[in-house]
């Protein structure tokens, strides 16, 4: 052993958490990651499909922004992902691992579908819309309060709890589909109020998705202000750092947990309304479509479908490309947070 050490010395990788990183450096790392992923993708594309990778990339961009409609679809998907992510921020800042966005979205979606079906054609549109937004936020909030209550008072594991709530929500949707299905037996609700457009988001900025964009921007600004400039925002950050510290500082931890999850659930519930009333006008168990989990991946989808059709590739091939991109993007966050230094261990 010692002899070996004498001759070569061991290579050691030292991992150190960065205390701070300059904005410039963080973005340089992220950009490098994107570039690296594009290079790896290019190799995979050539290996699997023998296509020119540059053309495939052009296809992705074409698919995302190639026409006015495609731009709007991309914007729609992006803002919905954004609002879900915004909803998750307070909970995660508090270190409350809310895996239940999926269920909160579904409950919000179910509430807005119910309002569209039962009241959509009876109420004037502005009233219906306000009601849809308010009730779906409340529905998502309820789905968020339940695990928060048990966390606050019985210290249950919120990760498992919120995850399980997703399955309950899915089954509730299945049950509602049995009641609402059209035509009977088809297991689909179909487009709700397709003739009257009752409860549909009206066109704003010349697009039916304009209102969603507006709402998401407002919510994003409000939550950012709440997080950064309000006492509540500060309190939940303290709870996230350490409940002991929070308690010592006189913060009511139970209240903060429940309050924050109310907010988180409500924003996710609102996302459900944006999906159902603002875009799909129907409800199914796939309404949330995994957005609660993979808020980012979907943003790439409109692009990836285009690659598949344009180049006659299988869907799965475009999923591989998406996967590689995401792997690098996630991976680079490690380098943003940690510093690695490689050196040869000196002889002892």
């Amino acid at each position: 052993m010692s002899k070996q050490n004498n001759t070569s010395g061991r290579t050691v990788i030292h991992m150190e958490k960065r205390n701070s990183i300059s904005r410039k450096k963080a973005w340089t790392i992220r950009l490098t990651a994107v570039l690296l992923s594009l290079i790896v993708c290019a190799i995979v594309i050539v290996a699997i499909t023998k296509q020119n990778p540059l053309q495939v990339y052009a296809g992705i961009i074409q698919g995302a922004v190639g026409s006015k409609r495609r731009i709007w679809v991309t914007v729609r998907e992006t803002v919905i992902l954004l609002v879900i992510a915004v909803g998750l921020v307070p909970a995660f800042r508090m270190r409350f691992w809310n895996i239940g966005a999926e269920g909160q979205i579904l409950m919000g979606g179910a509430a807005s579908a119910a309002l569209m079906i039962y009241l959509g054609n009876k109420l004037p549109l502005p009233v219906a819309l306000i009601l849809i937004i308010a009730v779906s936020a409340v529905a998502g909030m309820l789905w968020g309060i339940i695990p928060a209550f048990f966390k606050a008072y019985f210290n249950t594991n919120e990760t498992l709890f919120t995850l399980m709530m997703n399955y309950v929500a899915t089954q509730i949707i299945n049950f509602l589909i049995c009641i609402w299905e059209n035509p009977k037996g088809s297991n689909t609700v179909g487009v709700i109020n397709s003739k009257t457009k009752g409860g549909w988001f009206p066109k704003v900025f010349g697009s039916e998705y304009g209102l969603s964009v507006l709402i998401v921007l407002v919510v994003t600004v409000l939550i950012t202000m709440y997080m950064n400039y309000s006492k509540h925002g500060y309190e939940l950050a303290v709870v996230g750092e350490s409940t002991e510290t929070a308690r010592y500082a006189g913060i009511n931890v139970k209240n903060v947990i429940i309050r924050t999850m109310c907010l988180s659930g409500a924003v996710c519930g609102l996302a459900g309304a944006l999906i159902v009333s603002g875009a799909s006008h129907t409800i199914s168990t796939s309404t949330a479509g995994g957005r609660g989990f993979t808020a980012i991946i979907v943003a790439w989808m409109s692009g990836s479908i285009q690659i598949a059709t344009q180049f006659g590739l299988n869907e799965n091939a475009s999923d591989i490309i998406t996967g590689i991109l995401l792997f690098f993007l996630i991976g680079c966050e490690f380098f943003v947070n940690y510093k690695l230094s490689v050196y040869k261990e000196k002889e002892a």
Partner: protein
Amino acid sequence: MKKKLIGLVLSMAMVGGLLAGCGSSTSASAPAEEAVEAEAETGETGAEAEAEAPAAETTEASAIKVGVIYVGDENEGYTESHMKGIQEMKEALGLTDEQVIEKTNIPEDESCFDAAADLAEQGCQIVFANSFGHEDYMIRAAEEYPDVQFCHATGYQAAMTGLENMHNYFTAIYEARYVSGVVAGLKLNEMIDGGQITAEQAKIGYVGAYPYAEVISGFTSFFLGARSVCPTATMEVQYTNSWFDIAKEGETAKKLIADNCVLISQHADSTGAPAACEEEGVPCVGYNIDMIPTAPNTALTSPTNNWGPYYTYAVKSVIDGTPIDTDWSQGLADGSCLITDLNEAVIAEGTAEKVAEVEEAIKSGSLHVFDTTTFTVDGSSLEDYIAAHADEFAEGGAYAFMDTHVSDGYFHESEPTSAPAFAMIIDGITSVTQEN
């Protein structure tokens, strides 16, 4: 689980990026948007001019562009048969690959509308979609793009919408199902004659997808075919609530076999049921594709759709500038549906001759699959049943669609509307959702 967690971590990590990215894109998009708008407008007028041309006179086949929306891809039998049909159309009309844009794995939600609108904006003069749940979204697209023809398979609403550019199509697959039922019935007879089962034990199991008209019409025609040669046959239906689920279809087939079913058929799109039958040694009738490679010792045949004739007809109509039928349905007579090769190793003796005879009778119109003298509903004939439940029909109850189809002693399946409409459980069939 891990993937989901990663997704979460990722979305957290990216929030900052998204915020920044979104802010800048909205501010930058205003002028860009205008430019695109202008471009779209000019594009639109171009497309209009193009679309008007075929209405007035013929279009060069080389100028046509066709869009297709599939619910699945080539790995799934139902979509695969549509893809073959499109291929056949391409060859028949001499279209190049660039002229046909195919979108696969489009779910039955908003994405279908996005896909249809996108195809229309790419200059397609005709857009097809192949799954039942696509219909509402196709109608929305048809309203928005009046110069583009939208054709939807298995749907039933085209005529109701009153839109000139919205069409439904479906093959008269019930004819092929009836014929495959005859094949099954003859097999049951052979099993009875061979002493393997008694006449009373001739129970068929049926793996259905969803409990609505398309499936009900399908299994009823299959059952009527079987009973036309094996009068003691009965049938049990179980649903998977999915069009494509290999594991569930296999499980359901095994459940039916455990429930004393001696022959299995299916209206779901995977090879799950035939694979289970091969394991259990129970004869079976598949759907969509030849199941002999999956179940060499048990598969009898499969009823299947041939979409080539329709796709050729519809695209040719656009080229010729002639209108497309609002409801199109053709069957055995023009080859739009058929049964796949009979499995000589499994079928009963004399099957081929009987099949030829039945096919001929259906083609000539001397045999009607839904002949109301051959079955009863709740103990009474279909005509009497409808008369006794007139209130329900007037109110637009579950079977509101059916009463308009019955005349001249038979149910005119797929005639007034192309979509299957027969939605009653006839005597002899037990179905889990019967009480609904």
